[in-house]
């Protein structure tokens, strides 16, 4: 069984489930830490999480992971069962967060098909020490084990916490399943699992139904016995039991307390004899069932209402779906814009194709919406970073998060987590001062960090704002000048241009390299990552007051509205958002400067002209301005006019990246990707931002 990766789907489910648990667990810890204690709910949840991880990891044969989870589970078990216990909260949180980190690394390893080989020894020791200390401090060491066994057994067998001694009635139940129904033990388990809501206490025999395959035989031959203590209506219980699937025969009778006690004794004997032995592989199927159940339970509690209506889908499938919708859009254009059909001018066809267009664009929106994910998980991660950093640097910083419900495309989310982390680290490390410095500056000793997301047109803005010392314009300028990045004098540059310098590779303002930042590979990576998804970074700052970094990212990458233009035999697509207008100039309107650069005056403003055929060295017959067309494009307040042969029309296009081979060879300036046109030919998408634009401002 060395190669357990044969079970791909199972492994995938495991990694998915565990990662989710870990994430929730992390959030839970951070929340609890804020409050300073574990609520009962939180404690139950952590216990359940660890239990699930323990079970499923053992099933996947990841013993290290399982052992660690088991230890933590033990700690919480002790804490939970001894309500008055005193424990070192801070150390425990540290311990668990450390374990969370460990799990994260292991999950990545597993996902990459490696064996999770991280060494848990020190971590396990730490947890173990904690457990021992905990027990010792509270006088709960080994001698009291017996006491503890009982409540554990209670727990395992679903005794509802709110026990009412009086009025409870006792029932004796024997269930016989239909022959050949198979998996009797699981059916029995289902019965037990579901009946918990109705009863105060339920004991059953054979007791090891979920751990022991042999129990199937026993249930088959002797039936499944249950002892129930319940305040619920007799009829209700009977009704419930009657509804059991594959029920052959139900013996249901009321009994007395003595009988129940007797049953309990038999039952506990059994229990102690096979006390906590770690389940082996043969029982795993049942374990999954159990884990699933518990997972479902926990989810239901977390999201109470909407749990049932959510399914998780593999991202690959969504990608595929989107690709197909993209193809559909192209195919639709192919049909409805078929030159021969268009020439016929059939009214009913027009009507039908309009309808088709409406449906396909709705479908497209829908697929887009499916891929939208709220930023909250990404933002939640930042809490953890702030926590770790403030501890290490002993600064006091509060993170406020707004607009975490803002949604962006799944692919984009993945790309912004790292940059965001960098920015937050920078803000805490460089931006926000020590408490003393802050006091001197007359600020609240507690630093404030705001993380905000909001929609703005077709973009999402993510704003990271700190109230730290801000960027020193002169210092940045000086450094950049010394590095040879700029030649202008400081008066010639506006503030934003100077701040933008910190996004330059190799530019670090921090004199000392710390664990978290200052290696000069921070902000340029941020800028690069954000640009790679078509976004931009804006830096603004007031010295002494704080810094604001705005990430402007597009809602989606995949489909854009584009204008197709023709240059010679080539076709280009210009994103509609960057087009301001298009017009055919007169030759006499063109201005040439002594270096041969051409410009055009439009409404009193002067725009440079880039001839596409010249820029890309293409052959075309249209070189005269009066025969071609100028398209004025703009990005970030900078604009220029592109000259093309003619406009072909507006169309929604699916952005496809250029083949890797070409991308590896060279980044072609001004090309953002390619797309398929209605006739199946390929058009190159222009990335307007990469052209030599110039600032055109009204004076």
């Amino acid at each position, binding site marked *: 069984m060395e190669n357990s990766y044969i079970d791909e789907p199972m492994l995938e489910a495991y990694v998915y489930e565990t990662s989710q648990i870990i994430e929730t667990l992390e959030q839970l810890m951070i929340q609890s830490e804020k409050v300073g204690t574990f609520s009962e709910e939180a404690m139950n949840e952590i216990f359940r999480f660890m239990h699930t991880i323990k079970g499923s990891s053992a099933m996947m044969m990841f013993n290290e992971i399982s052992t660690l989870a088991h230890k933590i589970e033990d700690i919480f078990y002790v804490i939970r069962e001894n309500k008055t216990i005193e424990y070192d909260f801070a150390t425990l949180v540290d311990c668990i967060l450390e374990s969370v980190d460990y799990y994260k690394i292991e999950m990545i390893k597993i996902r990459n098909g490696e064996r999770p080989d991280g060494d848990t020894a020190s971590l396990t020791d730490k947890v173990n020490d904690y457990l021992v200390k905990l027990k010792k401090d509270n006088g709960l060491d080994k001698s009291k084990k017996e006491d503890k066994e009982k409540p554990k057994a209670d727990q395992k067998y679903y005794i509802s916490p709110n026990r009412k001694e009086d009025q409870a009635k006792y029932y004796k139940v024997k269930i016989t399943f239909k022959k050949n129904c198979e998996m009797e033990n699981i059916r029995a388990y289902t019965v037990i699992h579901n009946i918990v809501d109705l009863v105060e206490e339920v004991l059953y025999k054979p007791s090891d139904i979920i751990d022991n395959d042999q129990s199937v035989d026993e249930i088959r031959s002797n039936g499944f016995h249950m002892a129930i203590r319940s305040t619920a209506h007799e009829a209700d219980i009977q009704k419930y039991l009657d509804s059991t699937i594959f029920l052959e025969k139900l013996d249901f009778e009321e009994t007395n307390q003595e009988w129940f006690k007797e049953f309990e004794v038999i039952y506990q004997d059994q229990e102690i004899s096979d006390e906590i032995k770690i389940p082996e592989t043969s029982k795993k199927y049942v374990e999954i069932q159990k884990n699933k159940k518990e997972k479902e339970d926990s989810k239901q509690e977390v999201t109470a209402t909407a749990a049932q209506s959510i399914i998780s889908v593999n991202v690959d499938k969504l990608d595929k779906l989107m690709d197909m919708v993209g193809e559909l859009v192209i195919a639709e254009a192919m049909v409805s814009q078929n030159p021969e059909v268009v020439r016929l001018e059939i009214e009913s066809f027009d009507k039908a194709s309009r309808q088709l267009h409406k449906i396909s664009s709705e479908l497209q929106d829908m697929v887009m919406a499916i891929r939208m994910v709220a930023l909250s998980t990404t933002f939640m991660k930042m809490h953890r970073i702030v926590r770790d950093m403030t501890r290490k640097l002993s600064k006091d910083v509060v993170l406020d998060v707004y607009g975490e419900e803002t949604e962006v495309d799944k692919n984009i989310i993945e790309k912004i987590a790292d940059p965001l982390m960098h920015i937050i680290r920078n803000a805490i490390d460089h931006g926000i001062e020590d408490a003393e410095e802050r006091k001197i500056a007359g600020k609240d000793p507690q630093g404030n960090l705001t993380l905000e997301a909001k929609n703005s047109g077709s973009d999402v803005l993510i704003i990271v704002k700190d109230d730290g010392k801000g960027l020193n314009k002169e210092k940045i300028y000086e450094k950049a000048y010394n590095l040879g990045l700029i030649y202008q004098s400081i008066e010639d540059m506006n503030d934003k241009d100077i701040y933008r310098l910190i996004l330059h590779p190799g530019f670090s303002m921090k004199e000392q390299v710390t664990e978290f930042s200052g290696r000069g590979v921070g902000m340029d990576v941020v800028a690069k990552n954000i640009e790679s998804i078509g976004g931009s970074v804006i830096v603004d700052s007031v010295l002494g007051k704080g810094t604001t970094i705005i990430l402007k990212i597009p809602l989606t990458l995949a489909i854009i509205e584009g204008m197709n233009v023709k240059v010679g035999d080539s076709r280009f697509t210009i994103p509609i958002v960057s087009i301001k207008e298009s017009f055919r100039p007169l030759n006499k309107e063109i201005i040439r400067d002594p270096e041969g650069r051409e410009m055009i005056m439009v409404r009193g403003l002067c725009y440079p002209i880039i001839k596409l055929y010249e820029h*890309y060295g293409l052959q075309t017959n249209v070189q005269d301005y009066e025969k071609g067309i100028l398209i004025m494009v703009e990005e970030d307040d900078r604009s220029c006019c592109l000259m093309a042969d003619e406009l072909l029309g507006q169309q929604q296009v699916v952005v496809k990246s250029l083949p890797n081979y070409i991308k590896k060879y060279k980044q072609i*300036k001004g090309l953002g990707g390619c797309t398929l046109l209605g006739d199946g030919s390929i058009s190159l998408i222009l990335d307007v931002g990469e052209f030599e634009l110039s600032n055109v401002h009204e004076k």
Partner: protein
Amino acid sequence: MNEDMNSFMDEQEEDTQKGKFLTFYLGDECYGIDILYVTEIIGIQPITVVPELPHFIKGIINLRGKIIPVMDARLKFNKEAKDYNDRTCIIVIDVAQLSIGIIVDAVAEVLNISDDNIVPPPNLNTGGRKYIKSVGKSEEKITLILDCEKLLDENEVNELNHAND
């Protein structure tokens, strides 16, 4: 058990593809590509020119919604260009997750060449790029077997490009 089965299947698959080469012509010379790399063979298609690429990359084509670059084997091997006709083919190969089409004069056949009949190429010290992995013999015919990895090595592409400059 499962594992055994898998490796068995793998072997089977490998067996059927081993020692088989797709041969094609550039002028009079016969070249071969290990059939493992070949995805499909298509006729010549309209090619979209992508600016600023080396001359042997003719551009990109639309292969049923997938966009792949195409390389003219003649230009790559510094032969003179030839107009495309209806014998011209694009062989789509898949090397290290890169798909690329290779334009050749004509595709010949799939040839079985046993290991005994494959010899390393002579050590020609002409300084040229070693695109030829080995030379196969079969029935009086010599097939130059291409090294697909080297063909696509973008570092070499770069070097070559600089050399051309």
